């Protein structure tokens, strides 16, 4: 490995490329100009290209310079900077593990700084279970390169061939002369060194891991159990006020008049207006709210005739032409071979993200610079949006992401940050916008309602020969067929993104977007085919599966469950579902009892097996699986946004039901080891199975087909009725 020049950042001041300016600014802001180790290799260019080729992560602005990710202080502590955010899913722990592993420092000596646009390297946003899969590679490579540079520096200082140097717990020593040692901090002390390695050293083989792959408790627990953890709504600034914004009663409503006089009477209230934005500001949020309630605003609301029952027809009527996600053979030939054809239509409802922390942001404008503390999954996206909204260049906007109280995809959009920034400019005061629960539901980017139509067939020998799959508006993710079926086609009519004129309110990514709907429909349908072929549903799946990863999770879940084969409906209430999400393979078995009088479903047991390549933090991965299964009880059993003409009927947790303690059964999880693959996603996969696992459990218990999620008591009773008629 060859060195590049050793240079201080000041020396680059004369260079003209914009990248150099960015770089210099960046280092200054990181406080690196005064000390610590600085090694960089510029943004973009050949190195970025090489990395994109290596990691499969192209087309990003993620810097290739490892200084963007790491700072080694003179006190031997390491700070790791990442553009990702912590919303409960645990990267604050797993990134620290990765750094400790590749840099050979103590896990405890690593501090994390996340989601601060002034201090952290760019990132697109925290979603898609990508933090470990992709961004993790950058962090590991940064640590590996830093270690390589430190070794070079140590070799020079200790006058020893680099091969003799050993790194351990933040110390480099000569293995032949035990007294000959330097800490990383001593090595970098008071020096600003710019050096990088031409090639990133190879990452450690998994077999040498001592920190990664070992279970670690969350590192933010102490702050969170003591109430010291700061979320956006917990930041306090002198002179700050809380905003209550005047909102329409329904989506599509147009305001025709607004009278703020009565609100202005309230002591200490300031009313601000800017076009459509009308807000009440007060130093107390409760007083701002009361004052806002005195505002008289009139609206006209168009009658669309669309509600949560008519929506499915509306979707089918307005479907765009399909995209083919996969196909083989010829559906007509499959139809001819089929001895039995089963055809069904599955419906799925709008579901809210409902994080416990509502969208919140505090904005401050000082010395020409806007600082926004925001609960967001996309700090760099917010930076761009705020800059645009208030007419500032992006570098004059800093977004800081404190702890985020849950996101699940819903905080990919962060309109509250733009509102806070605008109100700060209008009022000249720091402004906190904390959406009420009603606003949180109203402005959510819901998981879209969707329809799936499946026609499947089995031949006389019980082999699936036909699979004609159409999904409307859920989206493609998770619809691909992985069974051995000679004649199949998957068609996707519309994605989960906003499609003009289709949805009555905003839709967007909801934890494992599309996959929850696709796996539900597929697995219930597979069970119906297994029943038609008089076969055990697990064996039926396995006989159509070659993919070893899928077989491994199905076999693992069955073993953990203690499954014995039976034809559905067996009366036992055992359900099964499996899928691929974020490159992770997952299978769930559920046991449920159905009260045929009330229609109530009680889930008794959930077992989940997941194969996700290498696992950085098995404890964190297990908790994500448990969290997915628990959260998934909601969309499977109860969660559904009801609405009429753009007016939401569920506006708080009294009628929009989240999973509760009494719903949650025993949960058992298995991680199927596979160290041959790099880490795959962990924050989303297990949730995709919940609709399917519970719908097949109800089918196995009663023979009733639940063709719509959520499986409310009414729908269960109706399905039981239909079963009798059939």
């Amino acid at each position, binding site marked *: 490995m060859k060195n590049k020049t050793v240079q201080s950042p000041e020396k680059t001041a004369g260079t003209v490329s914009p990248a150099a300016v960015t770089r210099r600014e960046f280092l200054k802001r990181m406080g690196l100009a005064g000390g610590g180790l600085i090694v960089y290799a510029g943004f973009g260019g050949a190195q970025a290209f090489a990395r994109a080729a290596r990691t499969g992560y192209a087309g990003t602005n993620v810097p290739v310079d490892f200084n963007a990710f790491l700072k080694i202080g003179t006190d031997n502590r390491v700070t790791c900077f990442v553009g990702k955010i912590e919303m409960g899913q645990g990267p604050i722990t797993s990134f620290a593990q990765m750094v400790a592993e590749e840099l050979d420092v103590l896990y405890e000596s690593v501090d994390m700084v996340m989601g601060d646009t002034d201090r952290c390297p760019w990132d697109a946003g925290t979603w898609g279970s990508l933090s470990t899969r992709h961004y993790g590679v950058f962090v590991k490579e940064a640590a590996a390169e830093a270690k390589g540079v430190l070794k070079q520096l140590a070799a020079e200082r200790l006058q020893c061939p680099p091969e003799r140097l050993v790194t351990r717990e933040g110390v480099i020593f000569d293995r032949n002369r035990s007294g000959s040692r330097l800490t990383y901090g001593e090595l970098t002390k008071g020096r600003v060194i710019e050096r990088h390695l031409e090639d990133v050293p190879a990452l450690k083989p998994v077999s040498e891991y001592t920190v990664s792959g070992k279970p670690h408790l969350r590192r933010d*627990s*102490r702050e969170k159990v003591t109430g010291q953890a700061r979320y956006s709504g917990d930041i*306090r600034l002198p002179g700050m006020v809380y905003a209550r914004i005047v909102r329409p009663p329904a989506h599509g409503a147009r305001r025709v008049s607004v009278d703020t006089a009565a609100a202005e009477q309230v002591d200490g209230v300031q009313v601000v207006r800017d076009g459509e934005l009308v807000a009440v500001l007060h130093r107390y949020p409760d*007083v701002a709210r009361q004052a806002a309630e005195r505002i008289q605003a009139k609206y006209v609301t168009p009658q669309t005739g669309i509600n949560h029952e008519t929506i499915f027809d509306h979707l089918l009527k307005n479907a765009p032409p399909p995209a083919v996600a996969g196909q083989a053979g010829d559906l007509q030939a499959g139809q001819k071979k089929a001895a039995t054809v089963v055809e069904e239509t599955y419906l799925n409802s709008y579901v809210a993200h409902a994080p416990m922390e509502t969208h919140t942001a505090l904005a401050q404008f000082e010395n020409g610079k806007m600082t926004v503390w925001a609960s967001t999954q996309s700090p760099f996206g917010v930076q761009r949006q705020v800059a645009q909204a208030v007419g500032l260049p992006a570098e004059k906007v800093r977004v800081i992401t404190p*702890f985020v109280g849950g996101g699940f995809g819903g905080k990919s959009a962060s309109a509250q940050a733009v509102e806070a920034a605008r109100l700060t400019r209008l009022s000249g005061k720091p402004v906190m916008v904390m959406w009420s629960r009603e606003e949180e539901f109203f402005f959510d980017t819901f998981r879209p309602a969707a329809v799936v139509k499946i026609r499947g067939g089995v031949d006389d020998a019980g082999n699936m020969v036909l699979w004609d799959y159409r999904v409307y508006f859920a989206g493609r993710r998770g619809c691909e067929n992985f069974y051995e079926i000679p004649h199949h086609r998957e068609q996707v009519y519309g994605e989960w993104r906003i499609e003009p004129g289709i949805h009555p309110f905003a839709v967007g990514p909801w934890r494992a977007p599309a996959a929850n709907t696709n796996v539900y429909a597929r697995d219930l349908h597979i069970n119906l085919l297994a029943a038609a072929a008089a076969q055990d549903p697990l064996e039926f799946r396995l006989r159509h599966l070659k993919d070893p990863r899928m077989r491994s999770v199905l076999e693992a879940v069955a073993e953990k469950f203690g499954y014995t084969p039976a034809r559905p409906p067996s009366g036992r209430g055992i359900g099964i579902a499996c899928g691929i999400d974020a490159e992770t393979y997952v299978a769930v078995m559920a046991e449920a009892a159905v009260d045929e009088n009330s229609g109530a479903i009680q889930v008794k047991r959930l077992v989940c097996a997941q194969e996700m390549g290498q696992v950085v933090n098995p404890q964190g991965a297990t908790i994500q699986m448990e969290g997915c299964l628990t*959260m998934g009880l909601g969309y499977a059993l109860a969660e559904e946004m009801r609405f009429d003409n753009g007016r939401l009927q569920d506006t708080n947790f009294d009628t929009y039901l989240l999973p509760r303690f009494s719903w949650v059964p025993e949960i058992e999880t298995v991680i199927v080891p596979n160290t041959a693959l790099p880490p795959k996603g962990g924050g989303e996969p297990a949730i995709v199975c919940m609709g399917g696992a519970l719908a097949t459990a109800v089918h196995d218990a009663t023979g009733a087909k639940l063709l719509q999620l959520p499986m409310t008591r009414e729908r269960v009773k109706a399905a039981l009725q239909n079963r009798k008629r059939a």
Partner: protein
Amino acid sequence: MIEAISFTLNEKPVNLRVEGDRPLLWVLRTDLGLTGAKYGCGEGVCGACTVLIDNEAVPACQVSVAEVAGSEVRTIEGLVKNGQLHPIQQAFADHDALQCGFCTPGMILKAYGLLASNPAPSRQEIIDGMEDNLCRCGTHVRIVAAIQSAARALKGGRP
């Protein structure tokens, strides 16, 4: 109407001049600077704002500050003693019974209230007692385990 209201907050006396009908939650979070109690719904249906009033777990969004005059109020900030986590806090940390942590202060204080009235609850009693506190991250099974181990650590004593 501005009233003089006194109560005990985390074992220290508090004297306020404040509109008596303001919700305790917002008085805690603004006037008193204690942000551990969270806003989740504002209607008493999520438990994120739970505090202890005379050792009973209560949603602070549903109580006016005038109503706690003369009472002992305890928030999550008042649980650590001499730098030591309370056994319930410790159990939550040991069991990783939190993810985003937004529901956590409310969960811990709800568990405190539960153990104050029933020091050795069964699993079912824990589930029943915690039922109204919501957690979107799905940490329920770990919270139940944490409360069980906190009860053991307290050896049947009151929290």
